Every structure is written in C-alpha cells, then in structure tokens.
C-alpha cells in the first residue's frame, strides 16, 4: 500500500506545557490552545520538542537573553537534546512527511524569527524592566537543533514562531500570524524551502525572555 505523507508540526515544549516557562512568563495554565487548535484543525500531527532551559537551569531560573545562553556548556546540552529528538524527526522526513517547526519568538533558546538580546546582561539580577532588545535571529536551541538535522543530511524545515516572548503578547495577532503561515504552506504544496523568518512579529516591544 502506498504511504500517504502526513503533516507534522514540531512544536516548542512550552506550547504544550506553560509550566516550562520562566517565572512570570506563563500566559496559559497548561496548553497554548490557539496553537494546538490551529494545527490540529489543519490535520497536523504534533511532536513536542524538549525544553532546553528547564533541563539546564531549572524551573526557578532567572530570565536571560541570547548572549547568556550562548555558551559552550549550554550548546553541548542543546546538542544532546537535539540528538535525542532528531531520530524521530529524521523518521518523519525520510518517510516523506511534511514537517514544520513552530518555535517561540523572542525566546533566547526557542526563537525562530526573533530572539532577545542584551550584550551587557549578567551579574546581579536587578536589571530595570524592559531593557533588552528583540533581534532577528534564531535562539540557541533552534540553532543547535537545525545544525543537528543538517549533520544528518536533512533539509531545512519551514519554520515560524508563536510570538509569546515579544513583550506585550497579542494573542489575536499571533494567531493570525500562525494561521497565515500554515495556510501559505497549503498553497505552496509542501515545498520545504519557504521559511517565514523574514516575517514581521505580531507584537512589538520588549521581550520576556
């Protein structure tokens, strides 16, 4: 019998489990239902990614920016997680499934289009509110996950981010963003080379890293 390719969404850990968020970062009790609904109503299977920050710095970790997680030890930790999940992703891709990645924009680890940045963060955690920046680049975890997939000879995944960590969270805007991304996937008919990284985020302002 011919194999029917499936649609698979790799999703950031905290999109199914807001308990993984840094203190004050959880906007939902558990699941981020708008994301789950948008994906399931379009026939996507869900594959949750591990949370790199939780397993590295714990549930009571301080807020942090990209530069603080950009360390050899954290990258090695992310590579271990990537090696744990990559065999499943490889299985999907080798079968011909249409695999996409939904990260968390503004996150220092899981950002896809945007991450949080501040070169001088460090030391005593008494920074004034809102003094970090949002910059257009991947978070550390997504960089390492993509590198592991590339090492396995797998193609880049179409990817976008739910704009939860971009400062003032705009759920309606984030939902619009995500639905546009998903519906554009339908139009391009499964091409794997369209990456929405250049898109504008749904919310502006400072991040909750």
């Amino acid at each position, binding site marked *: 019998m011919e194999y029917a390719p499936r649609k698979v969404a790799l999703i950031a850990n905290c999109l199914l489990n807001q308990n993984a968020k840094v203190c004050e970062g959880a906007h939902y009790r*558990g699941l981020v239902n708008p994301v789950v609904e948008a994906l399931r109503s379009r026939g996507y299977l869900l594959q949750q990614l591990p949370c790199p920050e939780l397993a590295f710095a714990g549930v009571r970790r301080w807020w942090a920016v990209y530069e603080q997680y950009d360390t050899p030890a954290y990258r090695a930790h992310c590579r271990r997680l990537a090696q744990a999940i990559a065999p499943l992703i490889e299985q999907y891709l080798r079968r011909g499934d249409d695999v996409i990645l939904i990260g968390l924009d503004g996150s220092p680890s899981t950002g896809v289009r945007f991450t949080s940045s501040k070169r001088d963060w460090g030391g005593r955690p008494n920074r004034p509110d809102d003094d970090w920046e949002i910059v257009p680049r991947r978070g550390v975890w997504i960089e390492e996950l993509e590198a592991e997939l590339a090492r396995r000879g797998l193609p880049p995944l179409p990817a976008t981010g739910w704009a939860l960590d971009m400062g003032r969270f705009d759920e309606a805007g984030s939902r619009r963003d995500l639905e546009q991304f998903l519906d554009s996937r339908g139009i391009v008919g499964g091409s794997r080379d369209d990456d929405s990284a250049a898109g504008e985020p749904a919310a502006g302002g400072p991040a909750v890293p």
Partner: protein
Amino acid sequence: MNGDARGWRIALIPDTLINPRDRAAAPLPNVLGVLEASGYGVLQLPPQGEHGLLLAVTADQVAEYAHHGYAVVAIGVRGEPGGGLHWRRLAPLLRHRGVVLPPRYYIRPDLDAAAEEQRFAVFLSGYDLPVDEQRRWRV
C-alpha cells in the same frame, strides 16, 4: 509568581493520545481538550520503539518539576503495550532521579468517549500535591 498563569500540574501523555494512529477506529476521548480545561500541561512521550535518550531527557524534566512543587501524573491507554508510557524504561529512570512515581490513569478506548472524558476530568481535578507542599513552592 506575579501575573503568571501556570497551572502547576503536568501530565505525561503517550504519543497515541495526541496523534491517534487509527482514525477509522472508535474515537478516543479528547484527551488534550480535557487536559486544557483542567489546567494541565503536557509532556509528550515518544511513539513505540527505542527512544532511550529521549526518555532520559523526559525523566530529567519530570524530576525537575517533581522536586519543585509541580504535580505530575501519567496517562496511559489500556490495550497499548506498556500503556503507551514506556513504563518499563521510564520508571527506573525516574526512580534513579529520586522521583516518586506519578499516579497513573488509563484511558479505556472500549468505553464511550464522552463518559470516559468525564471520568478522566474527575481524576485530573482530584489530583494535586498536599496543600503544605503547594504553599512551600507556589508563591
């Protein structure tokens, strides 16, 4: 945690409850819907097969939660090998990390889905850590 909405409760869930394999079979209860309504987060377990490193990573996360005031439950599926929970692999990994094994609930696909959803919701709402443990951590 000021302005933080987390529910402090987490369920380990087999892949088959998130991504049902046989769509022609009788519908399973809407497990994600019940979990969402009950305020639980989800840790997804891998499908059947060898996933030693991924289970170790999952056990690390469960240990971190269990040691810091989060309530964790495991939801299996009756009729699936190991309930879909990889329990023979996962339980020793959890014990090795000093985690008291979470209470398990088994979804019964042979029962009416709506009735099973109600039974499942009652289990979820009835479980949490003792109040003194909650007070210790959930500030």
